[in-house]
């Protein structure tokens, strides 16, 4: 009991963190332990190399994108708060939460999850997934097993299907619409963070 208190006390702004992300203190403790395990050298923050030590990420086709998502614009480090905030996107939805009309969108709502995924596609942050960005994603996912032409035709087909306003790119709304039948709450939730 004493140790848990001391662990939690090391985390600054714990109350605000819990409020923002909706994690319970036990969760935060677990995540802090994981943060510390990743943080070789006890710097108090994580750098991209620390993520590199997770070896499964190397074989993941979008591993580097995921790592990149943790570091917001131009930053080289990610502290515990940002770490938890990113992971909070993957918390399962709690249906019983009372919806307060003035409160901001909870971080693990469907929209937020979709926005997070969208940002992973949209690397240059212009609010649209262009054909090239889509091609890049397809290229990494299909791991060089297909030819460039096939990739291009798939990308074209994808954009053609989703593009409603004819700008040859997928905006966030179009992205959201194309996934309206997919159970995002289930697909983008990790049981670990429940």
């Amino acid at each position: 009991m004493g140790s848990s208190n001391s662990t939690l006390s090391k985390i600054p702004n714990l109350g605000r963190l819990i409020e923002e992300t909706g994690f319970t203190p036990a969760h935060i403790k677990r995540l802090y332990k994981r943060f510390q395990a990743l943080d070789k050298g006890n710097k108090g923050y994580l750098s991209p190399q620390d993520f590199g030590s997770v070896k499964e990420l190397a074989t993941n086709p979008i591993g580097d994108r995921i790592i990149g998502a943790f570091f917001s614009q131009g930053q080289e480090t990610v502290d515990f708060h940002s770490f938890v905030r990113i992971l909070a996107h993957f918390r399962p939805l709690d249906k019983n939460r009372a919806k307060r009309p003035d409160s901001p969108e909870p971080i693990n709502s469907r929209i937020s999850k979709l926005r997070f995924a969208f940002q992973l596609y949209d690397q240059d942050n212009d609010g649209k997934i262009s054909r090239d960005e889509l091609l890049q994603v397809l290229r990494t996912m299909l791991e060089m097993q297909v030819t460039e032409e096939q990739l291009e035709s798939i990308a074209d087909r994808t954009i053609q299907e989703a593009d409603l306003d004819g700008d040859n790119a997928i905006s966030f709304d179009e992205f959201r619409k194309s996934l309206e039948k997919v159970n995002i709450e289930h697909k983008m939730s990790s049981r670990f963070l429940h």
Partner: protein
Amino acid sequence: MYPSMSCWTRRGLLLALALGLALLVPMALSLGAAEKTRRSVGNGHGTGVTLRPDDSHGDGHGVNKTKKIFPVLTFDFAHVKIPFEISLWVLLASLMKLGFHLIPRLSSIVPESCLLIVVGLLVGGLMKLVGAAPPELQSDVFFLYLLPPIILDAGYFLPIRPFSENLGTILMFAVVGTLWNSFFIGGLLYAVCQIEGTDLKSIGLLPCFLFGSVISAVDPVAVLAVFEEIHINELLHILVFGESLLNDAVTVVLYHLFEEYSGLGMVTFLDVFLGVICFLVVSLGGVLVGAFYGLLAAFTSRFASHTRVIEPLFVFVYSYMSYLSAEVFHLSGIMALIACGAVMRPYVEANISHKSHTTTKYFLKMWSSVSETLIFIFLGVSTVAGLHSWNWTFVTVTIILCLVARVLGVMGLTFVINKFRIVKLTNKDQFIIAYGGLRGAIAFSLGYLLHPEEFPMRNMFLTTIITVVFFTVFVQGMTIRPLVDLLAVKKKQETKRSINEEIHTQFLDHLLTGIEDICGHYGHHHWKDKLNRFNKKYVKKCLIAGERSKEPQLIAFYHKMEMKQAIELVESGGGVKLPSAVPSTVSMQNIQPKKSNSERALPQISKSREEEIRKILRSNLQKTRQRLRSYNRHTLVGEPDEDGWNDLLLKRQKIMDMDKQISRMSNYLTVPAPPPESPTLSRSRLASDPQHYVPKPTLGNVPIIKVDLASPQSPEYVSVVDEFQKEAVPLKEEDEDAGGLTMKVPLGDPKKEEQEQQDGGKEQQRLMRCLSDPGPGGAEEEDEPFLP
């Protein structure tokens, strides 16, 4: 007036035919029975057709051979009796099925299973009137012949993704739920039996438990029959259906356990412990046996490319063998069948031809449909045929207990399960799951298997089982549809998956796997990812023939979509100019409406070309048709109209592409994406026979897609031939201005004369070559797509 009259006369005729047949069956059976009673001793079971060949032929062989008049016409029914009866039953079942759907109002209120049971009752009644003994549903016939097709159909087409995602829930319901039901019903029945005044004292505890285990199993046949018609959402469907399939292991173990020991009257802890071990052995053993046969089937299908006609046979025989093998060891045959079908499907589908795939699909559906119909009809007939012993207390208590046990079980289990689920089960879901627990023929057959000597109350059990089955099928089956509508339960979404969904779902899978790795948590995604990698790396290489083993799932899906669209394109008919509203893979169709003025200019250019192409195609069509091989029973010959279809498709694509080319040259339109033509066009040149034709590439990075029409998954049978393996031949000529159909035949070809012809550079000849269908006569080279 006219149309309705003909419609009604047709229906009337069909119904009259069905009724006539219904009368014919008892007649035939009474004939058989008459003969039977003359010859054989009754052997207790209804369809006991003891055919004694010597009898039927023996009458003429007497010692005193007197000369008889040569019989011009004889009546000898006995020796075709069995097949004749079976065929009559099957025919009756099928006609009944047809008949119901002619009366739409009836089939929308009453589920088919109910109607079939009623028909069975009628037929049974008729037979009794006539004096024939109606056949009872024998357990052997049921378990060995009627049940496997249904289960195989279910297992082969089992939707793996929702099944594996909900596997924990399904197992909980199947195992724990069935155990709870059995003991609750059995125990309380025993308590009730001990009450004075019911004269049920003679029933011991173990027979009660046995009865409980028999009656508590949710029946896959009944669930399928009813749920199929209400189109409920995928989650609920897979939960109830999965439960009905997986509870077979529990039922088998409990049944054998209680049957063994009810003679002795007591069960020790050791027996219970052994029972648990037995359960694990039965279920896991069944799955292993099924998986083994599934892998065998997949492996065999890899080599089946030369005898395509018997490909479906492998699917059926291996599956049936897995069922029988499991039954030899008293393992769970149902789980073996499910495992076999589910394991073999992805590999077999990648290997077998398109036609075989269709055949397999339709045969499975046909057999399972006939089986299901027969089962329900026989249930009705057996009700009439069997000896019944009705006991008001027992029956009513059983029905009430079944309902109560089911509801309590589902509620309790859901409470526990929801703690572990991400998407919780709501109250509505729970209600449907509880209400959907239908009993069916499996319970009846298991009851039928009981020995009358050991279980003197067998008849009462059977009567009760039948009553419960009737109750669930009629009452619950009929009312579930209005209840589903009333409660506004989510229905199945009929939409097709779009490529967006496919890509994004895969992306999200990777994302979640990554997040789980960062969290250090080896969850669902991690293991799924590992399994996929293992599958891709080792298993696919063994079990899938050729290069299809390397094709990623996304490509397969994409090609499937393109193929579907191409087929729709052709089938929708119409002229050359397809409406630009049709979303098609041919990007040329992306002609925006605002560019319509330039569109108008196009037809003038293309019409003359059109005519040219049409002329050439026509002459080629005739050429192709004449190239028929000699008839060989063991090979699938492409039918002429199939050639025609291919050519039609070909023609359309060619014309479209040509227009596109022309437009590009004329700078009238900017066509978004040039390259996609090549895959589409290559694919469109569908060979009508399994012989591959290999396009020879010239440029390094022009994608050549080898198309094998013979393959079932329209996507999967397109594989990308690695161009770098082929000789890269330099382009012969560069002038594509003449209309864009430039054919380049590489040097390394056997057909050198074609090449000389081509050197002439005549466009028409170029056209001819590219448009001619590669016939069975042999490798007319496919030229690569006409793209620069």
